[in-house]
């Protein structure tokens, strides 16, 4: 019979090779033979394509345990690997105490790292969801006077945006945001009641807002929602606030009582990780704040965003922007020896890198803080790894016999190394799993207690998971390698004969590690004390202004016209006069603790050709009296003098800033805001803190404006706060039914400026405690091990008459030395670190010796308690118990 022969080229080769790879030798004949034969005949009957598929399918169906080679399952490496794991687990169970110390240290360290990475990941994710975020920039401005940087401003001139679009071909889109939408918004319901709220997060923006940014417009048209005057879009929650379940589209909402705006869209609430927090956005075309504003080069109130073409890099853009304003404002620059330079921030950098920029949209995070936190987390993790190294090497003696036996029966050193690495891998793996679980459970509580917004779902993000994987591997190597080398260096003969490995008392690696741990812990303790001290210092500092017992009401902005509001203000004042418990009333455009957006340049006789930047305050005649701001010279405003509308007062800083040497010299002089009008200086007052003590004292100029202000401040006297509040609110509602009664207590509001510092403080204390806990765990483990090792020695000494105290000293003195060295090392380190942190504050407490004394002795005390806890029980043991069995 003529036989055809198989053409191997037609076969799916990989499948054939795969078959040959997995198939047992004794089965290959029948299995491969049958499949090849089937392939041969099927090719003739069904064609090559089908035969190939069939062949692959058959190969896959044969891929089952019964066809596999058997030998790999009994191979020695696998068996040994199993043995390593079994022995590790057995050791773990046998020595529960040490294992617990090791594991809990690692868990604490990794949990700290995880918490911080959750925070860091969130901070880094700010504003990266915008379309083409990589080429979206905010244009900001540095302002120089006499060649010196005076101020950095986040908002810029309204004319910048259109000019950039016209003159820079690489700029594809520009959007301006004006933060002046605040005030009362109200809606009339069908039943006639008025829904009204004072809105803080309200702005005006260019029509392309929703094309520029990645915020989601749920209802309404992206392009048209803001392209006409008197249009407004609301966030979902704002829409629910004003309209409930009703469809808001097409409805009217009134701004400041009279301005009717039509709702043309609803957007999804802005995500947490954006530096913008707007709830109401009105079309910029609705605004007419100053004449011909789109061509204005004088008012810098507009946050300006640009989107560039893809291939434009930031440096070239900045280089072109640097001289951009020179062409526009040359005359003014020359006259006042000033200069202004535009530059850009990528939108993703705004949150972390806006430090020093004035008039930003809100509180931003800082890259510094992230750096500090990361360093602390890394320290804790390293301390935990050091624990592992210390305890594992200390326990080497216990494992020496095991190592000896293994070597005798033929283990190579590499096998033993692998064994101990497997062990440390298991520890790290368990620790990571436990820490992950712990963090996932703890995050809601931490968020609640510290007002954080950590997102635990980030735990499952690729960044965190891959980070953990790296952590497990790096951790097992870092913490496993050194003990593994120590343990495997034993000589089997010596060890098995019973000669116990002992390093003689020189300054060994383990000692260095203990010193490192405690240096880090003490530095953290010192830091904690300093943070607390600085916060207290800032809180207790004289503000130069009395803000106690002061109720501040957001002034009414909804009224028929200015005259109407003025009349109602008169009425309200009269009513308050008649109210018991109200000791005073004043109004102003800003109060301490609230950022002052009003600033302008002024000339004086000492600086005739230079505009000196001074913050503007508009106040009534009661302001200085009520807030107890000291008048140094001259007089305050007088409501009976008509000329006081052209008068100003300066604070001491502003006086110096304008070049006057004494208050007396300043009085009667004039200041000029760079136009025809000039103002007479009638008095000088003491400086006071408008902002928190992180900032310097501002120069302030006071103008007289008794008829309107953003804030009404009421001085309260008497104790029945509740009834006073009810009274005031009832009177408010009678006079201002169209305005919400929206108030705060000034001291609380001022204190809120320290919220982020307080959070930082809490985090710092938490981590410092964690670091000390982990370090002490390790110390405890080491001491108990020494006590265990020398229990016979202690027994004999005791029998011979040593006192318990002497024995405790015997055990503790080695560690006492280490702690002392750590304290000595930590002091200069801590000092350096603390002084660099203090530089963030304008008003700094002194570091002082107290912190060092207290911190050092606290650490010494904790360490002593840890050491003596174990030493005492060892020293108080009945010597019979330890000496009996031998």
């Amino acid at each position, binding site marked *: 019979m003529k036989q055809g022969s198989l053409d191997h080229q037609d076969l799916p080769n990989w499948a054939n090779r795969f078959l040959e790879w997995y198939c047992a030798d004794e089965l290959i*004949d029948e299995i491969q033979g049958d499949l090849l034969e089937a392939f041969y005949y099927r090719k003739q009957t069904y064609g090559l394509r089908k035969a190939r598929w069939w062949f692959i399918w*058959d190969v896959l169906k044969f891929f089952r345990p019964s066809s596999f080679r058997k030998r790999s399952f009994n191979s020695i490496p696998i068996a040994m690997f199993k043995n390593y794991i079994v022995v590790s687990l057995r050791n773990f169970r046998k020595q529960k105490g040490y294992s617990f110390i090791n594991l809990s240290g690692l868990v604490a360290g990794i949990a700290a790292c995880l918490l911080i990475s959750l925070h860091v990941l969130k901070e880094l994710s700010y504003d990266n969801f915008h379309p083409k975020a990589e080429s979206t920039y905010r244009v900001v401005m540095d302002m120089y006077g006499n060649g010196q940087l005076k101020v950095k401003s986040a908002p810029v001139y309204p004319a910048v945006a259109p000019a950039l679009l016209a003159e820079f071909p690489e700029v594809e889109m520009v959007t301006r945001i004006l933060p002046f939408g605040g005030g009362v918004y109200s809606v009339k319901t069908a039943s006639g009641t008025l829904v009204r709220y004072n809105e803080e997060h309200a702005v005006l923006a260019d029509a392309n807002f929703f094309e520029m940014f990645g915020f989601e417009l749920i209802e309404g048209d992206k392009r048209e929602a803001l392209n006409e005057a008197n249009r407004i879009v609301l966030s979902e929650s704002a829409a629910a606030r004003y309209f409930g379940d009703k469809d808001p589209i097409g409805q009217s909402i009134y701004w400041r009582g009279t301005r009717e705006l039509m709702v043309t869209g609803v957007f999804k609430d802005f995500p947490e990780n954006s530096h913008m927090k707007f709830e109401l956005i009105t079309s910029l075309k609705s605004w007419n704040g100053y004449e011909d504003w789109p061509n204005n080069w004088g008012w810098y109130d507009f946050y300006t965003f640009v989107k560039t073409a893809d291939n434009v890099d930031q440096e070239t853009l900045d280089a072109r922007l640097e001289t951009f304003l020179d062409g526009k404002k040359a005359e003014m620059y020359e006259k006042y020896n000033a200069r202004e330079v535009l530059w850009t921030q990528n939108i993703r950098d705004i949150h972390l890198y806006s430090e020093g920029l004035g008039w930003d949209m809100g509180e931003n995070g800082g890259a510094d803080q992230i750096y500090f936190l990361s360093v602390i987390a890394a320290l804790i993790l390293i301390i935990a790894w050091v624990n592992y190294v210390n305890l594992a090497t200390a326990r080497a003696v216990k494992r020496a016999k095991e190592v000896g036996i293994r070597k005798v029966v033929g283990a190579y050193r590499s096998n033993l190394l692998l064994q101990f690495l497997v062990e440390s891998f298991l520890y790290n793996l368990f620790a990571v799993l436990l820490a992950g679980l712990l963090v996932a459970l703890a995050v809601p509580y931490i968020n609640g207690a510290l007002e954080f917004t950590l997102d635990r779902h980030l735990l499952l993000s690729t960044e965190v998971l891959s980070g953990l994987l790296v952590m497990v591997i790096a951790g097992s190597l870092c913490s496993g390698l050194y003990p593994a080398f120590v343990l495997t260096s034993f000589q089997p003969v010596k060890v098995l004969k019973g000669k116990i490995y002992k390093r003689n008392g020189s300054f060994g690696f383990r000692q260095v590690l203990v010193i490192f741990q405690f240096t880090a812990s003490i530095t953290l303790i010192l830091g904690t004390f300093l943070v607390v001290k600085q916060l207290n210092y800032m809180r207790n500092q004289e503000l130069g202004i009395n803000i106690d017992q002061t109720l501040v009401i957001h002034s009414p902005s909804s009224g028929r016209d200015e005259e109407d509001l003025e009349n109602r203000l008169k009425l309200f004042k009269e009513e308050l006069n008649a109210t018991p418990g109200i000791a005073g009333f004043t109004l102003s455009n800003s109060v301490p603790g609230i950022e002052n957006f009003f600033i302008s340049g002024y000339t004086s006789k000492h600086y005739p050709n230079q505009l000196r930047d001074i913050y503007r305050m508009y106040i009534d005649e009661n302001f200085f009296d009520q807030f107890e701001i000291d008048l140094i010279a001259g007089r305050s405003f007088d409501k009976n003098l008509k000329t006081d509308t052209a008068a100003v007062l300066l604070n001491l800083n502003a006086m110096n800033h304008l070049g006057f040497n004494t208050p007396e010299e300043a009085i009667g002089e004039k200041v000029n805001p760079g136009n025809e009008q000039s103002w007479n200086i009638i008095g000088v007052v003491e400086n006071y803190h408008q902002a928190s003590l992180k900032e310097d004292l501002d120069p302030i100029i006071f103008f007289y404006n008794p008829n309107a202000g953003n804030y009404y401040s009421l001085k309260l006297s008497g104790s029945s706060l509740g009834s006073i509040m009810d009274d005031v609110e009832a009177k408010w509602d009678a006079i201002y039914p169209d305005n919400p009664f929206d108030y705060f207590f000034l001291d609380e509001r001022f204190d809120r400026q320290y919220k982020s510092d307080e959070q930082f403080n809490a985090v710092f204390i938490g981590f410092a405690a964690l670091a000390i806990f982990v370090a002490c765990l390790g110390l405890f483990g080491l001491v108990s091990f020494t006590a265990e090792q020398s229990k016979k020695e202690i027994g004999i000494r005791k029998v011979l008459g040593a006192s318990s105290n002497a024995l405790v000293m015997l055990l503790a003195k080695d560690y006492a030395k280490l702690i002392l060295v750590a304290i000595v090392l930590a002091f200069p380190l801590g000092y350096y670190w603390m002084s660099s942190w203090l530089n963030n504050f304008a008003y700094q407490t002194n570091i002082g010796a107290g912190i060092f004394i207290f911190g050092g002795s606290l650490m010494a005390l904790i360490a002593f308690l840890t050491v003596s806890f174990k030493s005492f029980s060892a020293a108080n043991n009945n010597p019979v118990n330890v000496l009996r069995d031998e």
Partner: protein
Amino acid sequence: MSQSLGNLEETILLLVAVMPEEAYGYTVAEAYAEHMKSRISISAIHTVLKRLEKKGLISSKMGGATAERGGRRKRIFEVTKVGLSTLEQIQESRQKLWQMMPKVNFSYQL
């Protein structure tokens, strides 16, 4: 017979019995497809053959190699005496049942 046979096992045992000296994985699969009008995979055939051999109903020996098998040898199966008698028993008991079938003339219905 104490051992019970599944449907597929019985069919394949029969196929092996009717193909003396020719029964190995591929040919059994082809014969199955031809007679039973449906396909099962060669790996399934192998499993059944192995099981039958374990039960002692068939025995195997290695046969010659051919070129279309890529030089691989065949494992050739043949029915053992036990296997044959099992088949006969099954046949017998079925026969009895068939004889008990009542003779009904369906054409007279209705």
